[in-house]
């Protein structure tokens, strides 16, 4: 590339011993207590479930090519969108960033040798696998047709599909999430290196702290709720059965008490990723550190008080609906605080258009659309019109795919050199990032329009006048699929053949960049002592970053 000084300074070599080659053999992986290896085990397993969910999504989009439905029977269509939701939400989105990137990075970012409970960390992966097996068993033996929301009495009485193994699987999987959250909370409290004060923590860690709070407070409630559904099916206990005096709406309350905050389990870690990427590639300290940290906690807290906005059409009390509507609007405040702070960080920054940065900027745009359309849905009157339409589908895909998945893929690129020690081919990665962005918008933007025009979600047919937009959406989905396949291929390729990255290729200021890439098993040779403020890009001469000196250019795999 150009003549600007490269942060790598010259040829880099992999360290002779690191966490990947410290021990060998299948046992050394399946019985590992190293948080970095467990992160990679999670990476493989969530990718597997992402594929499963992706296959269902592909079938849905193909089916909707024609108004009469192209591919499957109505019953099968119900199963497809249900299984897509269950695989993606419970087994991909919720564990994705926390269990992969969080697991890998939190101990290194705070200067610890491992999480506080390494064995429990491994246990949580096995619990995930057991829960996942139950769900796959359900998929393979009749599928699941209740919608990922498992609304009673459909799920508890009327559905003839394999609901029982699926809810048992989700019950079990919940404990994986609880244990991950517990581990993170304790680790952040007790394992910080000397000098790593609370307000020197990377914002990624703050975001995961908030996420973990939701995991430990929300997940037990869905666990007991889904257990009651299983008991209802197995033993007809009557809690959710109106014929026995039970209340099916109670299920919705309990379900959303977890499942709304669960949205923040998915998006908060992605926001943490963005907060790391933006200052790195703007070469500026992050704007409003404490506000971004506090807004994560605020989102976690307010997130617990908004659940009934999913239930505006259940006939709940008007006063309750008004309160929940108001509280839902409140979530916009901490969310906007983050967006404004990221954009302020960009202002007068020295911006480079590296792959992680493209994902981060894409995230801001998509999250903005997803967040603002959330306000439409929080509005009582408007929600009556667009409730259960494709508008809702588009809205939550903008948050979950446009937000959480963009953050996840962006984060994978950002820390890939740390995880593997090698760089991916930059120009290919940029093309993939743009492909993803374009494919995503083409898939989901038409769905806003479809929903606003009145196309209900979860229907297997639609009136002919909606066909053009549906075909556009399916076309977008195929571009989106390409956008996901490309990184899977070149990231895998780069694990072996990529250019060696060196400890700090971008360079960035976090503690994780001060150790070797890949890090040694115990993360640091000597416990680090933190003497600097976070994101101090103006004042880190040790990284070649200081006022007045030209910033080193990021290292690229295809330089």
């Amino acid at each position: 590339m150009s003549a600007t000084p490269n942060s790598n300074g010259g040829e880099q070599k992999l360290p002779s011993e690191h966490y990947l080659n410290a021990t060998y053999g299948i046992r050394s992986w399946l019985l590992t207590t190293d948080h970095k290896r467990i992160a990679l085990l999670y990476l493989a397993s969530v990718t597997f479930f992402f594929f499963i969910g992706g296959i269902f999504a592909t079938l849905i989009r193909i089916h909707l090519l024609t108004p009469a439905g192209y591919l499957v029977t109505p019953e099968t269509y119900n199963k497809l969108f249900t299984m897509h939701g269950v695989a993606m939400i419970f087994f991909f989105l919720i564990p994705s960033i926390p269990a992969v990137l969080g697991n890998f990075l939190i101990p290194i970012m705070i200067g610890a040798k491992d999480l506080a409970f390494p064995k429990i960390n491994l246990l949580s992966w096995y619990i995930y696998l057991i829960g996942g097996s139950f769900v796959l068993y359900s998929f393979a033996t009749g599928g699941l047709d209740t919608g990922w929301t498992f609304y009673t009495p459909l799920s508890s009485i009327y559905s003839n599909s394999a609901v029982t193994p699926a809810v048992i699987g989700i019950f079990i999987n919940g404990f994986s999430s609880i244990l991950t959250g517990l581990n993170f909370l304790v680790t952040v409290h007790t394992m910080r290196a000397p000098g790593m004060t609370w307000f020197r923590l990377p914002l990624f860690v703050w975001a995961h702290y908030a996420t973990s709070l939701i995991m430990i407070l929300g997940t037990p409630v869905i666990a007991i709720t889904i257990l009651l559904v299983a008991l209802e099916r197995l033993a007809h206990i009557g809690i959710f059965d109106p014929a026995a005096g039970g209340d099916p709406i109670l299920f919705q309350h309990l379900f959303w008490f977890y499942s709304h905050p669960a949205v923040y389990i998915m998006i908060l870690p992605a926001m943490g990723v963005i907060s790391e990427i933006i200052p790195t590639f703007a070469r500026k300290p992050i704007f409003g550190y404490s506000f971004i940290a506090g807004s994560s906690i605020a989102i976690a807290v307010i997130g617990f008080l908004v659940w009934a906005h999913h239930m505006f059409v259940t006939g709940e009390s008007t006063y309750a609906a008004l309160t929940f509507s108001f509280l839902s609007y409140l979530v916009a405040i901490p969310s906007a605080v983050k967006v404004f702070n990221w954009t302020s960080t960009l202002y007068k920054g020295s911006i480079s258009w590296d792959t992680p940065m493209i994902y981060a900027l894409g995230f801001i745009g998509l999250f903005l659309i997803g967040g603002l359309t959330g306000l439409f849905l929080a509005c009582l009157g408007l929600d009556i019109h667009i409730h259960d339409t494709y508008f809702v589908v588009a809205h939550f895909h903008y948050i979950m795919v446009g937000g959480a998945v963009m953050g996840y893929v962006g984060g994978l690129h950002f820390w890939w050199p740390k995880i593997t020690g090698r760089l991916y081919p930059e120009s290919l990665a940029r093309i993939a990032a743009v492909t993803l962005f374009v494919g995503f918008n083409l898939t989901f933007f038409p769905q806003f329009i479809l929903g606003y025009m009145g196309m209900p979600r979860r229907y297997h047919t639609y009136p002919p006048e909606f066909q053009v937009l549906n075909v556009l959406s399916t076309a977008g989905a195929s571009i989106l699929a390409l956008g996901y396949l490309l990184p899977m291929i070149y990231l895998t390729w780069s694990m072996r053949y990529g250019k060696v990255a060196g400890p700090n290729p971008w360079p960035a200021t976090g503690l994780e960049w001060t150790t070797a890439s890949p890090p040694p098993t115990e993360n640091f040779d000597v416990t680090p002592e933190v003497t600097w403020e976070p994101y101090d890009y103006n004042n880190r001469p040790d990284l070649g970053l200081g006022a007045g000196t030209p910033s080193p250019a990021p290292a690229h795999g295809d330089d």
Partner: protein
Amino acid sequence: MHRTGELYGHFETLEQQKESAALGMWIFLVTEVLFFGGLFLTYTINRHAYPTAFGAGSNTLDLALGGFNTVVLIMSSLTMAMAVWSAEVGKKQLVSIFLIATLVLGTVFLGVKVIEYKQKFDHHLIPGSGFDIRYHAEHPTATDNPGKIAEEREELEKAFAKDPDLNAHAQLYFSLYFGMTGLHALHMIVGAGLLVWLIKGSFAGRYTPQYNTPVEIVGLYWHFVDIVWIYLFPLLYLIDRHH
């Protein structure tokens, strides 16, 4: 993960390790509160909706056995607290004695629970197609006090007059009764398993004033399970005893 004595390699000091373990258990107990919380909420809503049926269901429970169990469990919390104290001051023999006492009391509690469940089974109070809240009043055994049976029948008559669907709604009460006490009993069984593990360690002389974290955090867990019962007992046994 290497280990020096009782200190795992990823911790710097024993204090840090102990602090982490205790905080971890406290956070786990928070999740337990939320876990039981779902059932307590369900109980509250249904009791509010069907007060008569919940009262009638509650009155079928054996107050003497429930009261006895409450005392047993509180005693077990005392012995558990004594075990933790003994470990902290280094009285190794006392640790074993108090842990065994706790285990015995916990087992007594579970044994009494079995007797109660058996009684409910005999009285057709298991939710399902055979459920009949009047069964016991109408099929008394030779050991039952005839005066009490007449009283029971009269109470049920009154309750049915207030709530014609009493049988269905009482079934909800018993679903919750078995759900909540069953989940509680499951926690007791896990606790008993943990106690067996602690007793093994204590026989090996593992717990000293410097290192007694396992005793302390199992103690926390045991007290939590005890507290759950302190709430369950009045909510399930005592709600309609005022006449």
